[in-house]
């Protein structure tokens, strides 16, 4: 009886815990060192202001970042940033996965892509998730 209960607990922990994963890739020949201006394209479904977290972090690092709902900014920029955030519930809502793509400012082609996935027990706050993803995509030191 006790052994079965222990198995149940172990299975439940195994199912819920998982591992935090980060993935990043860069397009062949992509040069991110020349980027100065970045436009964050607000995701239509984003009601939590994740676009503003990206803008804040980018500005802290010295980029000139803006965001908006339009597909393209009013003025030309070096890069566009698109993102997809996924949330889950475990006692409180938390950001389960964040994907971001850095795109060429003119063509819109993806030049870098990063993802952070953090299950409940390894959750980070949204600003920390944003920072983690941007660090990977823009090759910033941690």
């Amino acid at each position, binding site marked *: 009886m006790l052994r*079965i209960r222990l*198995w149940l607990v172990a*299975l439940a922990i195994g*199912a819920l815990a998982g591992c935090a994963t980060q*993935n990043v*890739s860069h*397009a062949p020949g992509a040069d991110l060192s020349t980027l100065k201006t970045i436009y964050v394209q607000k995701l239509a479904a984003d009601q939590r202001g994740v676009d503003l977290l990206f803008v804040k972090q980018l500005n802290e690092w010295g980029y000139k970042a803006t965001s908006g709902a339009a597909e393209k900014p009013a003025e030309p920029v070096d890069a566009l940033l698109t993102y997809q955030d996924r949330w889950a519930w475990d006692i409180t809502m938390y950001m389960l996965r964040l994907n971001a793509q850095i795109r060429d400012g003119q063509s819109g*082609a993806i030049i870098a*892509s990063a993802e952070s996935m953090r299950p409940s027990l390894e959750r980070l706050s949204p600003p920390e998730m944003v920072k983690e993803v941007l660090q990977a995509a823009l090759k910033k030191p941690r």
Partner: protein
Amino acid sequence: MTKLAFWVAGLSCALLAGCAAPSRPEAMATAAAPAAHKSNASVVLDVSGGRATQSTYTPQISNEDFATALRKSIEQSGTFARVPAVPPADYRLIAYLGRLDSPMMGMSVRVELEVGYQLIEVGTSRKVWTKNIATNYTVPSDKAYAFVDRVRIGNEAAARMNIEQMLTEVAALKLP
């Protein structure tokens, strides 16, 4: 006691049944009509940005599997005469899998895929064609029982549509 044992068995089955399988190259390759224009040139493939599938995460598309699907599709359509595994070749087709997005759970599953293609003439290092192709596919809930299978089916369909579109555009270049 018996009830508990059933719970353990049920949980174990549910965990094991939900293991993600990678997207299959044969299902990503397109068997569409022959190319409108067939080039006599050869092309070598350079795929990056893909990811291997971990059994505990959603199905992904690996570089190797996408390259295999690309090779099969090019050979079947006749867009290029040859697709050698390694250089030399007349052209180099770069495919960067920049985005593969699917939900973490749900009934119907919408997969979005974006691939950045560059076709380079090897002799002159000239970019002949460059295009970012985005495709998506929604898998209805009754298509497969397991969520991860619906994601895999969505990945494969989005990849197939993406390759089809690429082949159509490359054929329109009317390369010699």
